[in-house]
């Protein structure tokens, strides 16, 4: 670290360029020093646009730089493991995009390596930093709901009337690249359930591809999609509560998302950008629960993604500067990955799948390495 300033290197020009690099650029105590993309022209364009001094089409060249302390892995999930392991080997701290990996084996290996190297390893579950969600966490921890009974999340997309059938074909349409809505949207809800209530102890799930084809970006026709665009999942949490997740992107003009949490004493409801609604025994009706100022984002009035990522970027930079591991960390990422693996297994076997899943011989999940 030069003069206590954290050097940030970003791999990936999609999310990395749209949200992460701009957020770090405005974060005190850090400097975005390089960007990598397998497509050189994209790396160079992003570097020009954001005044980043170094651009490369070889992420290893970024990892080799002394002025990079923190690497942001924002590539498609099938590349996370390889890039994260290489970054840790190069002595870098890592902020890895969600979902953490392709499967739990990769995820737990990454988690073990981060512990072995003593580096900071974080997963970009940035939705935890949406002010209303952070407030929900506080309220739930403070007993607002009483005994939690059921958390129900629905997410129906199709904004501007565009169903997945109309979305240009890219890696998200491919199962083999870990595309699909479970990785894109579902894992945020899984993380929220874990964070608010505790571990998932079992689930039943079905993943579906309802939009069978997607248009090719060049307009030359359509191509078959095989990743999930719809999720059905019924879970049980370790506090006894039920959790449901019903998601589809194969719809038009969906109402967005709604999270409803019900307990013996109270109710919390968050729909899209809010406001957060709540009521407890004795209240007349659900009413707005204003989020305390201390939980508001420095980017409160901006794009909803920046609103969440800007405060998260500040914490990430502080964690790296102070050498202090924070959450959501690789363990959170791997636990979420386990739930995702269980969802795939349940969807294939049409049975309830208990968690945690079996571990490999000589490999204890999340525990001390053996």
């Amino acid at each position, binding site marked *: 670290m030069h003069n206590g300033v954290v050097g940030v290197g970003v791999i990936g020009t999609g999310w990395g360029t749209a949200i992460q690099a701009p957020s770090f650029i405005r974060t005190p105590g850090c400097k975005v020093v390089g960007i990598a993309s397998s497509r050189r022209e994209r790396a160079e364009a992003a570097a020009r646009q954001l005044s980043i001094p170094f651009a490369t089409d070889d992420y290893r060249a970024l990892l080799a730089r002394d002025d990079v302390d923190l690497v942001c892995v924002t590539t498609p999930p099938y590349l996370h493991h390889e890039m994260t392991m290489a970054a840790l080997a190069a002595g870098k701290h890592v902020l890895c995009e969600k979902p953490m990996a392709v499967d739990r084996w990769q995820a737990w290996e990454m988690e073990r390596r981060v512990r072995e190297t003593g580096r900071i390893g974080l997963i970009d579950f940035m939705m935890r930093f949406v002010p209303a969600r952070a407030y929900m966490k506080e309220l739930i921890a403070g007993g607002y709901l009483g005994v939690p009974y059921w958390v129900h999340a629905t997410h129906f997309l199709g904004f501007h009337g565009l169903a997945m059938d109309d979305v240009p074909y890219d890696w998200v349409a491919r199962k083999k690249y870990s595309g699909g809505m479970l990785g894109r949207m579902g894992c945020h809800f899984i993380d929220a359930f874990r964070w608010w209530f505790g571990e998932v102890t079992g689930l*039943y799930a079905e993943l579906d591809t309802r939009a069978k084809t997607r248009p090719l970006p060049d307009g030359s026709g359509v191509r078959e999609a095989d990743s999930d665009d719809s999720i059905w999942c*019924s879970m049980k949490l370790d506090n006894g509560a*039920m959790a449901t997740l019903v998601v589809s992107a*194969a719809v038009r003009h969906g*109402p967005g998302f709604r999270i409803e949490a019900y307990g*013996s004493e109270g*109710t919390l409801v968050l729909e899209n950008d809010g406001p957060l609604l709540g009521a407890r025994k004795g209240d007349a009706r659900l009413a707005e629960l204003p989020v305390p100022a201390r939980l508001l984002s420095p980017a409160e009035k901006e794009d909803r993604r920046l609103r969440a990522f800007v405060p998260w970027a500040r914490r990430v930079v502080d964690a790296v500067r102070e050498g202090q591991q924070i959450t959501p960390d690789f363990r959170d990422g791997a636990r979420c990955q386990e739930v995702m693996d269980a969802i795939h297994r349940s969807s294939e076997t049409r049975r309830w799948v208990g968690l945690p899943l079996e571990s490999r011989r000589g490999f204890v999940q999340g525990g001390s390495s053996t």
Partner: protein
Amino acid sequence: MSNRIRVGVIGSSFGAEVHIPGFQSLPEYQVVGIASGRRERAEATARQFGIPFATDDYRELLARADVDMVSVATPVYLHHPVTVDAFAAGKHVLCEKPLALNRQQGAEMLAAARDSGKAHMVNYELRFLPGRQKIKELLDAGYVGEPRMVVGEFFGPFKGMHGRDVPWDWLAVRSLGGGFFGAKGCHYVDLYRWWFGEVTGVYATLETKEPLRKVPGAEQWRPVETEDCFIVMLRTERGVQGTICVSRVVRHGTGGRIMVYGSEGTLILTDEGLLTGARRGDKRQEPLLTPGQMPQAGITGAGPQVAFPRLAREMARAIREGVRVAPDMEDGLRAQEVTDAIFRSSAERRWVGLPLEP
């Protein structure tokens, strides 16, 4: 007056709340008798509605020559014996939902109906709510394109009461046919069958979150054996995924909504009766029906009171014209089969395909 259908109502709770006022609001019917297991309830109901005959033995009602049809509004465990006896006595039968305790009973009831040649219906009256009728119309006209998903949610308090505050009653007892699935959930099964065809399989979780309820008039708590919340996932023969998420252990909830998604469009109906929709190319969801345009399009408030007379009119048509109307006991049996599969799935924690083995 003489050409009115003469009805005997059996059961003085929902019977008095919905059936009797419904029949009395229609020119097709005349309510001539009421039976209730509690004589004083039968007599009080008879006085209240000006019904000439009251009894605590439904067989006396069935024995009367001036009764053409009976309306069965008893607790669920009595549906089978009362209905079978009624057909044997040569009456037309309208039976409350769910049809029976299980599909074996349901099959016997349907067989009795067919043997008797009498008219029969099951009171899935919520089909007749204007919002749900409108959705059926729009679906048949292709509004949503190829239907993909339907999601039905209800996060009550049901009838204004959190599960814990509901007085202990027969709904808490499994062997009497209690449970919130029978009260609320089976309506969604009927609706989904009607809109999207037969159910081909289910996964379900039924839970009891409030295991005790207070006995009315006593400072005593009794156990609840039946579910107060449930999640059901199902698929229909037309490839539609259906979800039912219902809880009555909710003090303040979002109420109810039904969302229908297809390849071309979306329909959303709230329990208050606001129906909105949007198709490919539309800018946003727009109202298709509002409570103002169509009072009682939803279920909130007097939903059953609005819907029941519409179903009763169909029953009159079946009796007078000898035509088959829906939902009849075959529909009731199909829904019962799905219900049995739902309970089996919840117990065995696996997907259960339909139809079930005989």
